[in-house]
């Protein structure tokens, strides 16, 4: 385990220079959006509307954030309520969907049972289908289940995510059968194999899937838009979006910039927490 933790080589060698020469410019390109978002949030009013638009902030202020705070204090529902909603919904969805995804990925790729191919194919078609088109039928389903204005309406539609299943399944397939057989020989049940063999071996896939699902849930406005009439049940994303759209005036722009930084930060934090797992366990998973 320890071996995998150190991915950076210790010294600096001349041989690394050519790689660095290619990578560094690309890094600058790829890093641009992040720098832009951070800079944008701290720009004072006149810089936000400057033409040509500036990339870096010249006179950073906290003006946008204080305005955002003031605005949310004046509205009926406090900001903390939305934050609470978002956190609960995101935690529930990510947790449940990871559990379901890994379980079904294990079953689909390692256990032989009737209808396995059919289920795989359903999943593959579902990946390719555009989610916009199932909007209305989904609404009807949610209606019939009586989930309107219920927290579960945030969670359930997003729980079964075909792309995540597809991704995790590919990783589970690469776990060698002999490993599972060895576990069975030692008297492991399917549950034990799933918990003690499969899960540790596909940790990187789980971390990747977690990031994908998190992103999907965190930036999702569909559920708040369609399944909730009660404003106090809606999520932070929805609130931020209405903020920007409703005040599409000069003041709205600054608040929007601040809001997008706030929306972006949890992504960044989660990624920094998980990136160790994502990057390292791949090396030490021992799958050959």
């Amino acid at each position, binding site marked *: 385990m320890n071996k995998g933790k150190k991915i*950076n080589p210790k010294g600096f060698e001349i*041989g690394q220079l050519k790689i660095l020469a290619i990578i560094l410019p690309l890094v600058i390109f790829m890093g641009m959006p992040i720098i832009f978002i951070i800079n944008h949030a701290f720009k004072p009013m006149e810089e936000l509307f400057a033409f040509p638009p500036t990339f870096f902030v010249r006179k950073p202020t906290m003006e946008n954030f204080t305005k955002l705070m003031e605005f949310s204090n004046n509205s009926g529902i406090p900001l903390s309520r939305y934050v609470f909603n978002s956190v609960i919904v995101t935690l529930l969805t990510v947790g449940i969907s990871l559990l379901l995804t890994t379980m079904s990925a294990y079953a689909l790729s390692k256990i032989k049972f009737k209808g396995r191919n059919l289920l795989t194919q359903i999943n593959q078609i579902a990946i390719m289908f555009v989610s*916009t088109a199932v909007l209305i*039928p989904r609404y009807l389903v949610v209606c019939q289940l009586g989930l309107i204005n219920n927290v579960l309406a945030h969670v359930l539609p997003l729980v079964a995510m075909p792309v995540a299943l597809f991704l995790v399944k590919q990783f589970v397939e690469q776990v060698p059968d002999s490993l599972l057989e060895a576990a069975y020989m030692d008297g492991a049940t399917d549950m034990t194999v799933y918990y003690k063999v499969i899960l540790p071996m596909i940790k990187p896939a789980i971390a990747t899937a977690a990031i994908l699902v998190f992103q999907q849930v965190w930036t999702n406005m569909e559920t708040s838009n369609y399944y909730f009439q009660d404003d106090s049940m809606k999520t932070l994303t929805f609130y931020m979006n209405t903020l920007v759209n409703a005040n599409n005036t000069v003041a709205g722009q600054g608040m929007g910039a601040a809001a997008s930084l706030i929306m972006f930060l949890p992504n960044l934090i989660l990624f920094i927490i998980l990136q160790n797992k994502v990057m390292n366990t791949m090396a030490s998973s021992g799958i050959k």
Partner: protein
Amino acid sequence: MEETKELTKAEKKAQKKALKERMKHLKSGKLEKRDGRMGLFFMIPWFIGVAFFLAYPLGTSIWYSVNNIRTLPQGLMFRQVGFGNFTQILQSDPDFIVQLVDYITSTVLSVPIIVVFALMIAMMLNMKIKAKGFFRMIFFLPVIIVSGPILTMLTEEGAGSISAIDMNAITGAIQSFLPPMLADPISDLFSNMITTLWYSGVQILIFLSGLQKIDKSMYEAAKIDGGSGWECFWKITLPNVKPMILLNVVYTIIFISSNSTNPIISLIQTSMFSGDREKGFGYAAAMAWLYTGVIIIIVALFALVLMTRKDAYEKQVKRAKKAQKMEVRKRKKIERRNRRNAKRIEHQRAQGKITSRTTTRDEY
């Protein structure tokens, strides 16, 4: 002879019966039973979710696509139109066709670029360089941006293209060399270079995991035998990451096509909520199914090109099995013919047409 034949027939029947019985018994073996049970157990939670929120809505949308639906105060009003929606889209919706063609060309062009770029970056990140972890993070970070509303903001600000390079020169050069059919999407691609590259975060990650699973001793062995780095790439790295390439291609296509910035998706959405008599849910559902069909075709094309071929041994086994099957079929055919002919001769003999007993069944 007649008797022995009868006996064998009866014997065969009995044998078959016994085999069937045994098969039945085998079918409900403990292991398979347990596997089936466990498989279902693991699948059920996921299956319920899919059934309610994916499969059922998908089915409903097929039903919608052959209907004209209007929203009235009393509820939805359905009127069956058969394939009317589809023909209407194909015949009288120029927007959709134009954007579909645009989408196809841009996808077919940008998918290889994204995948190759991701493979290159992943290989570089797999080498020994300082601050590897930091680089990996930077390359993955755009993933958490591109799906959000931030991307639209950024493209509005013009951050989607490389302003340092003179794009007009490149696009101009391309347009003078190539026919406009090809030149337009390619120059589009160049002007959206950064956004294209931003899409490659997950792909890099998948490639990295594939690369790290390659046994290092293979490279050592190749080097001892005098293989260059270039040869190592083609003979070791590429075959080993091949399944990952397919996975990445599929993922990229799906990602591009279901992205919220995709114009076709917004087109579907607008036609879904448009007040037009002819449009509405049914029309939008038909559109979505057409679009899905196109996506499936693109994925299938790429998959056909990249499908991992079976290795030589498996091929040989398959060929041998096929030859065996042919042999069996041939033998059965001859047997059948023999039997038929024997019957005919028997019949003719009974009628007294043939008197000599020289032609017997065995001589055929």
